[in-house]
């Protein structure tokens, strides 16, 4: 299942870099697209603004198929305080922009499954695919607006997984 999670994350990351190349984060000395996996980074006391954070939640398995299907729920959290140049008064627009980018990242609703433990990554036989996301309400904390979206990510287990 790790290959599916890695492939989903890398698909969103690649798409974000194309949709908005300016949304980046400096992390561990490297500038990279502004999306990360919570469980693959050092613990945050507070999530960074203006980037997407992936958090994996539930897991379901259906073994009564030709290939075992895994369904994993992914929550994508993001928040913004707007920009300094507008004194944060554009935080609503900034969150709307992140909403739009996230919607664009989800399409198309599939990506090839790759094994990222190999160098270079190897293409596997199946695709990872997902549903439309469900967006939660905006949460307001002082000048910070945040939102999360949840999506079910499906994949088939292949030999050796």
């Amino acid at each position, binding site marked *: 299942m790790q290959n599916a999670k890695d492939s989903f994350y890398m698909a969103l990351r690649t798409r974000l870099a194309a949709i908005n190349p300016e949304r980046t984060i400096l992390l561990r000395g490297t500038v990279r697209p502004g999306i990360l996996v919570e469980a693959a980074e050092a613990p945050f006391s507070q999530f960074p603004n203006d980037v997407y954070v992936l958090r994996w939640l539930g897991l379901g398995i259906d073994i009564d*198929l*030709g*290939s075992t*299907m895994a369904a994993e729920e992914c929550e994508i959290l993001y928040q913004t305080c707007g920009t300094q140049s507008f004194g944060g008064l554009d935080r609503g627009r900034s969150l709307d922009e992140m909403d739009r980018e996230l919607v664009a990242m989800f399409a198309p*609703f*599939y990506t090839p499954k790759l094994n990222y433990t190999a160098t270079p990554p190897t293409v596997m*036989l*199946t*695709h990872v*695919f997902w549903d439309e996301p469900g967006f939660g309400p905006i949460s307001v904390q002082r000048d910070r607006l945040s939102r999360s979206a949840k999506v079910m990510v*499906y994949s*088939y287990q*292949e*030999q050796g997984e």
Partner: protein
Amino acid sequence: MAANWFSAPAPVARRVRAYFAPVNRVAQTPVLFDAAEQGGFSLDRPPAPWISLGWIQEFTRKSRSKTSPVLTGIPAATLEQVRTTLEAELSLQFLSWTKLTMALATGSQHMNLLVTASGAVPSGDGAQAAVAVIPQSGSTATSIVLTGADAAKFVPGSIIALDADYSGQMGFVGAPVAGAYVRQALADVDYIRRVTFNVGLVSQVNSTGLTLAEPLPGGAPTAGDKLQAVTGFVDRDGGSFYQEWSALFVMQGSQGERIFFHYPRLQNMAGAEEAAIPLDGKNKNGQTRVLLKGQYLALPVTDPLDGERVLCYRSFLPASNALVQ
């Protein structure tokens, strides 16, 4: 060279995509889809002459064919079966309202509401129309050359209908899709442009003519074609005409596999009907999406391969590297 493989479970698909191709009603010739040759097409760019109808939902199909046993012996036992009737029905809901989807979801002629002449007497399916204009030489499927005076009659965003004058033709009329069957001579010179499927949206207007947002289904204008502006569309519950079309439905699976349902001949079997779907499931009395409902009867074609009469071809293109046994 070697390949790995996997055991593919049942396909998982999000939605169904529908495509239309015209049946030549005079020659009674449908358009056939060859999944072996054409099955890999991009869903947004179907091979000619197929035209996308967009996404559909509530796609259900049902075979109504009946079989009877041939009984022999005492006591009688089934020796074999014979197919006594050949019949299939399908229903769907279109997720868009276009000239094509409206026409295919109605039971009879589907008409263009031509821009009316000044002071024309109101009529249920459009009053007397303003005078048609003549495309000039050099026109194409996406660019209509007009005189400056004629071009000034259109604005960007206009809908146009392009087809021949009605001059006493009988039988099927309209190109490239037969829009009606004329049983008795009519008086309306614009009748063919009222029922034609050859419509388009004007994206630009200049002194030399019109540019269209999409190519006209009928291609470049031919001699005798004329052009009129359209305000919308109208259909009627009743009448004797049945739309007939070649249909292709595609389910794209999550692993790249494809299921095709190809009905060479479909005819409407119900009048115009809509389905209202609430946008917010928690507020049934709020905004609703109005979908066109279509119910169809499949008509048979004779397969030249073996002379069998068939209603539908179901093709399956498996995912890459999926086991097939």
